[in-house]
Every structure is written in C-alpha cells, then in structure tokens.
C-alpha cells in the first residue's frame, strides 16, 4: 500500500468517521461550538443594563442631593443618597465582573460611554419618584437576569448571572417594601447601620473577595 492517492483517501474517510463522532459528542456536551461564544450577546445585554442602572442612580443622586423645596420627603433624602451611592457601587461591581467574563470568553464588552439613560415618561424630580424609578429598574434587572439564565450556555455565566440577580432582588424588595409601607426605616438604626442595607453585591462568592452574603456571619442566638 504505497499509492499516495489511496492513503489520502483512507485518511479522508477516517477523518470523516472521526469527525462524525466529534460532532455528535459536541451536540450533547459542553464543548464550545464554532463561532462566537453564544453567551457573549446575552451577557452584553446584562452589562448594558448595569451601565443604565449606574446612570439612573447618578440621576437619582442628583435629585437626592438637592430635592425640590416643596417635596414632603425631602428630609429623608440624605440617608437615601448614601444607600443610592452604595447600590450604584454594587452595579459597578457587577459590571466589572460581567465585562471580565465577556472578555474571558472572547467577546468585547460594551463600554459605559456607549450607554445612556433617559428618564421614563412621567418622571419628575422628587424623592418618591427616585425610589419608584429605582424599584422599577431593580425589578426589571432581576427579571432580566433570571430570563437570561435559561439561555446562557456555560455554568460560569449562569452562576455570575444568578449571584447578581439575588442582589438585584434585594435592592428591589427593600424599595418595594418601603414604597408599600410594609416596613418603615428606623432613623436611629439607619444612622448606625446604613451600610447594612443590602450589604454585599453578590449572593454567593465571586472570586476570592469577601463580597457576598456567604461572608456574613450567621446571627447567634441569645
């Protein structure tokens, strides 16, 4: 068997057989398919929403720093501003992790400069409207993360989306419960523990930082 044509034909046939096995395995496994990683687009959509949230909190902070003089809730703007800045920082931390993941899977993260925020129809400057806007945005974000999880392919992507989603749901429920008057803020407790109002940007630990609920000690019984 020295005919190079026959060798080459064998090689091709053998290669086809091998290819058929690989492609079938690829259908059911975690192998990355050819072409761009399918998680890049949904992750970039979530990153865009994070940048929008950062800018929405900037707009909210602007109002909270100087609420309208006829705003009946103007006196509560100072602690709300601290909380808004803390939560904006959470969104920035989420964005950093999303951008890092997108880059690691071969994508190009959207830039913050390319995202703009426009206040919704009917929005006017007041403390109450800032709370409503934040609640609406946080709910939408939580839903968007949950919806994305079903379409994300890699467990790494799903985990990051899930650990951020749980933070957005905490932001949302605090705002929602306040707006529905199911809870009230305790002024004295707020002064001493204001940074405890959703204390971590993630539910489960991302990387090696103490940045999640996992790093909060259990309450002890008295």
């Amino acid at each position, binding site marked *: 068997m020295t005919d190079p044509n*026959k060798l080459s034909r*064998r090689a091709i*046939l*053998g290669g*086809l*057989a091998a290819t*058929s*096995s690989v492609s*079938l*395995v690829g259908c*059911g*496994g975690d192998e990355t398919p050819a072409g761009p990683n399918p998680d890049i687009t949904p992750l970039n959509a979530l990153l865009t929403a994070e940048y929008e949230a950062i800018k929405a909190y900037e707009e909210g902070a602007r109002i909270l720093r100087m609420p309208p*003089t*006829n*705003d*009946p809730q103007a006196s509560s703007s100072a602690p709300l501003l601290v909380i808004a800045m803390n939560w904006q920082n959470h969104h920035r931390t989420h964005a950093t992790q999303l951008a890092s993941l997108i880059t690691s899977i071969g994508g190009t993260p959207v830039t913050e400069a390319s995202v703009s925020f426009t206040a*919704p129809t*009917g929005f*006017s400057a*007041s403390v109450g409207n800032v709370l*409503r*806007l934040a*609640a609406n945005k946080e*709910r939408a974000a*939580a*839903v968007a*993360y*949950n*919806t994305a*999880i*079903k379409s994300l392919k890699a*467990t*790494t992507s799903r985990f990051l*989306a*899930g*650990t951020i*989603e*749980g933070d957005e749901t905490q932001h*949302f*429920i*605090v705002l929602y*419960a306040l707006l*529905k*008057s*199911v*809870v*009230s*803020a*305790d002024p004295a*407790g707020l002064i*001493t*523990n204001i940074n*405890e109002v959703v*204390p971590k940007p993630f539910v*489960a630990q991302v990387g090696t930082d103490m940045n999640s*609920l996992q790093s909060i000690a259990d*309450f*002890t*019984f*008295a």
Partner: protein
Amino acid sequence: MSNEELSRRGALGGGAALLAGVGAALAVSAISRDAEAQSTNDVQVLNALLRAEYEAQQAYDLAVGYFGSPDMADPGRSLGPAAALVAMHYRSQHADHGMRLSRLITSLQGTPVSSSAVVFTPPAGFTRTVQNFLRLAANKEKGAAVAYTNALKSLASDTAAELVAAIGGVEAQHFIVLYLLLKGVATPGPAATTMASEISPRPVVAIAGETNSLATLPDFEYTALPMS
C-alpha cells in the same frame, strides 16, 4: 479497474462506513451516558434544595406557633403578631418552592424526597424567643439563597437553572427583610399587618409562562409633587 481492485475498494469503503457507524454509535452512547449522568446530578442537587425547603417550612411552623403566643417575659413579644404574618407568608412561598422542585425532579425521571423524610431540628444554643426565631429564619434564608446560587455551577438542565435562579432570588428577598429588621434598620410599617404578603409579593422571580412572578408585577407610576 480489475475485479480485485474493485473488491478491495469496496472493502475499504465498507470498512470506513463501519468505522463511522461504530464511531457514531459510541458517540451516541457517550451522549446518552453523559445526559444520564447530568440528569442524575441535577436530581441530586434539586433534591438537596427540596430537603432544605421542607426544613424551612417546619422551622416556620415552629416560629408561627410561638409568635401566636410568645412567652410573657419575651422582650420581643410585641412583634409577635406582625412576625407571625410574615412567617406564614414566607412559609407559603417555601411550600410553593417545594412543589415546583418536586414537579421538576419528577419530570427529570427522579424521585423527590418526601416531606415526611425531613425533620427540622433547631440548632445548638437556640431558645424560643421572637428574636431568636427571626435570627433562625434569617440564617436559614441566607443559607438557602447561597445554596441556590451555588447550585447554578453544576446544574445541566436549562429548566432547572431557570427555576433555581427564580427561587434563589426570593430567598435573598426573605433574608434581607429579616436582616434589616434584626439590624434595627427597619421596623414593621403601617401596612405590615394589612399587606403582609407585599413583603415578598411573588414566590418566584421569573419563569417562562409563569404569571405569579415578579415579571408580571406592574411598575410603580410616577407622581407629580403638589403645587407649592
């Protein structure tokens, strides 16, 4: 072309086809084994979460019982009625989670753990007071939120991942409300007893086709300030 050569070509072609066929069969078999292993893992992970849901329900049962008639010397006694409403609401959401997990496990050809197989035991050092029950609930809800999130690292099924994220987001809500009450940052508001279900208005965050989720909650509308 001689008959011998034709026959050799035929044999070569047949061999390659056979190889391809065997390769494909082996690959299909590997896929099947892989899918089975993934499904088995998903069922194990989901059953661990289901077990925790049953434990949470039993813990809330104990809490509701105590909140209904706290010890006369309990300094947190006045919080009992509001705490009972919140606990009952959270308990009902855990029951909802348990049913959803159980249905999913069955659909994945698994056998859900039964509620009767799970027995909740209060942790060491626990004594019955309103504050301790709130602390216990906060600890459990935090543990659950973290467990659901970490489960996403290993679940293979898209449906399982969606459900687990949808429930985990609600456990995080339960946790933060309890945490803020215990940290003294929040107190029950004017609507705490009349609208207790609004303290976590939906049992899941978002599931395709599910109407009882945060996805269907209407946005707040913006209001104008009174004219000065």
